[in-house]
């Protein structure tokens, strides 16, 4: 067994929240370990180009200036290209086991594990060329490569716009951008929506910039339309766009468009595996699958010594994540005895900015809800679980046979049992099973409970199994 590395604060996730937490904690004199699965810091939002990776690329060079100090900070140890596959409480703190075979002992932990895209299956969604908007974005920002030449971008939420704009700027033809929600005037009257949106003019301006880039290139922008199928011999050749009925229960118009790529995503789901392994209290998300970590004003969770920041606490965007990271890093430092153990309240300006970011996110969430009738576009043979290739017919049969929750469906159909362990299909399956069984999302549960957070070779497990 490799002797554990010891740090004051372990930060899991190298996006805006994790980087801000690491900076704050090291600034208060902590030894910090920062773990991320990528070889460079930044997470999804500040993803750096990998251009010079083989030539010993500095893991912070392409980041906004405020994060670059992390690279040379002697108080920060970077564990890049590595994931935490197991986390547990031990005497005097926490033990984290990494996929590189290392183990880290920490006095406090900051969870900044982010989120994954929420996807809804449709016929043909497992053809090569069908992918998430995030996949196209990652290829473009990280590698400077286009996912395809003729692309449909669809789903729901504000993330579709930067993805589509990035693709057209890089020379792809974006055949259409289809947002499934329809912006009805009444929506703006819902509590908090107008105030939330108007609280962040900078974000509205950012959105307007993407829109104008798309309109300049005459990209059709469709509201109330969704990708309901794609087809092709060995990859995507045609994509079906459908104008959705209310609550997405079927459609009244459709057209097939030629495209080699379709990028479809419906927002994000917090990555809860490690939070759950550490026993952190969580809350359901209103009308959306998955749950989020409950945090106090200093980002502390219900597990002493564990703090959380960013999307794992609810989808609020990069600016909020960074502010939360700052608070979490400070609080974690206090937990391990820095500053005399007293964090003090967050300063008024941090609190004010955070409240503004969160109200904007809440408003956006109200604009785009997933229609309960979305399963109308599934066919019997549509694979719902990509790993195990469980079909929609099998899921319906399982519920018909008495399965009342996701674990029951998984047991009968193997959906969620494959390599990704339900990370991809779990949220959609929760929506579908809740609909079929006539139960609430909280009642059908999810598939995020696993003591081994990522697949690891048995040798790594054996190697890590020390005494205790």
């Amino acid at each position: 067994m490799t002797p554990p590395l010891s740090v004051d604060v372990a930060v899991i996730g190298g996006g805006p929240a994790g980087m801000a937490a690491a900076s704050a904690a090291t600034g208060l004199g902590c030894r910090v370990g920062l773990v991320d699965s990528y070889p460079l810091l930044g997470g999804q939002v500040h993803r750096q180009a990998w251009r010079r990776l083989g030539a010993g690329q500095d893991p912070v060079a392409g980041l906004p200036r405020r994060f670059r100090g992390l690279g040379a900070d002697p108080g920060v140890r970077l564990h890049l290209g590595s994931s935490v596959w197991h986390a547990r409480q031990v005497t005097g703190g926490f033990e984290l086991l990494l996929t590189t075979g290392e183990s880290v002992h920490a006095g406090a932990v900051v969870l900044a594990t982010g989120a994954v895209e929420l996807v809804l299956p449709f016929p043909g969604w497992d053809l090569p060329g069908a992918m998430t908007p995030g996949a196209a974005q990652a290829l473009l920002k990280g590698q400077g490569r286009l996912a395809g030449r003729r692309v449909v971008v669809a789903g729901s939420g504000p993330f579709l716009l930067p993805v589509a704009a990035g693709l057209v700027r890089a020379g792809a033809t974006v055949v259409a951008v289809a947002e499934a929600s329809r912006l009805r005037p009444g929506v703006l009257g819902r509590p908090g929506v107008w105030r939330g949106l108007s609280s962040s003019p900078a974000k509205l301006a950012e959105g307007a910039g993407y829109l104008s880039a798309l309109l300049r290139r005459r990209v059709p922008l469709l509201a109330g339309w969704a990708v309901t199928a794609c087809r092709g011999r060995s990859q995507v050749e045609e994509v079906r766009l459908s104008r959705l009925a209310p609550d997405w229960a079927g459609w009244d118009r459709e057209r097939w468009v030629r495209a080699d790529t379709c990028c479809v995503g419906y927002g994000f789901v917090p990555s809860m595996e490690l939070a759950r392994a550490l026993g952190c209290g969580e809350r359901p998300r209103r009308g959306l699958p998955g749950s989020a970590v409950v945090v106090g004003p200093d980002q502390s969770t219900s597990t002493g010594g564990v703090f959380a920041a960013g999307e794992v606490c609810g989808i609020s965007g990069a600016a909020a994540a960074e502010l939360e990271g700052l608070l979490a890093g400070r609080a974690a430092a206090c937990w391990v005895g820095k500053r005399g153990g007293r964090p003090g309240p967050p300063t008024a300006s941090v609190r004010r900015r955070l409240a503004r970011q969160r109200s904007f996110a809440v408003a956006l969430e109200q604009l785009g809800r997933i229609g309960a009738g979305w399963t109308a576009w599934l066919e019997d043979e549509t694979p719902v679980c990509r790993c195990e290739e469980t079909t929609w017919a099998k899921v319906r049969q399982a519920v018909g046979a008495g399965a009342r929750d996701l674990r029951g469906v998984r047991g009968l159909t193997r959906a969620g049992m494959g390599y990704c362990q339900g990370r991809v299909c779990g949220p959609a399956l929760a929506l579908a099973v809740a609909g079929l069984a006539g139960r609430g999302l909280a009642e059908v549960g999810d598939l995020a409970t696993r003591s081994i957070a990522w697949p690891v070779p048995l040798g790594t497990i054996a190697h890590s199994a020390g005494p205790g």
Partner: protein
Amino acid sequence: MAEGQALRFTFSDRVLVGRAGDTVASALIANGIRSWRRTRRGGRPRGIYCGIGTCFDCLVDIGEEVAVRACLRPLQEGDRVAPSGSVGPAGP
């Protein structure tokens, strides 16, 4: 796009060229290869899906390393890339 240094690699005995800064997945895509394994049950072609290491659809074997996520692995000179055998029969 900034051009990285050219890197030669193989995929199932085809000699291909990517560049420094590519992942194995992006290098395959840049060479017009969009699927690089077949599923265990249905034999369906798979390539990149989530692009960020979550879905495991893009698995490849590289030399002696098995079941590597192609979207996370930086391309290296001389990589011998093959369809992942651990999760399905070899070869498209």
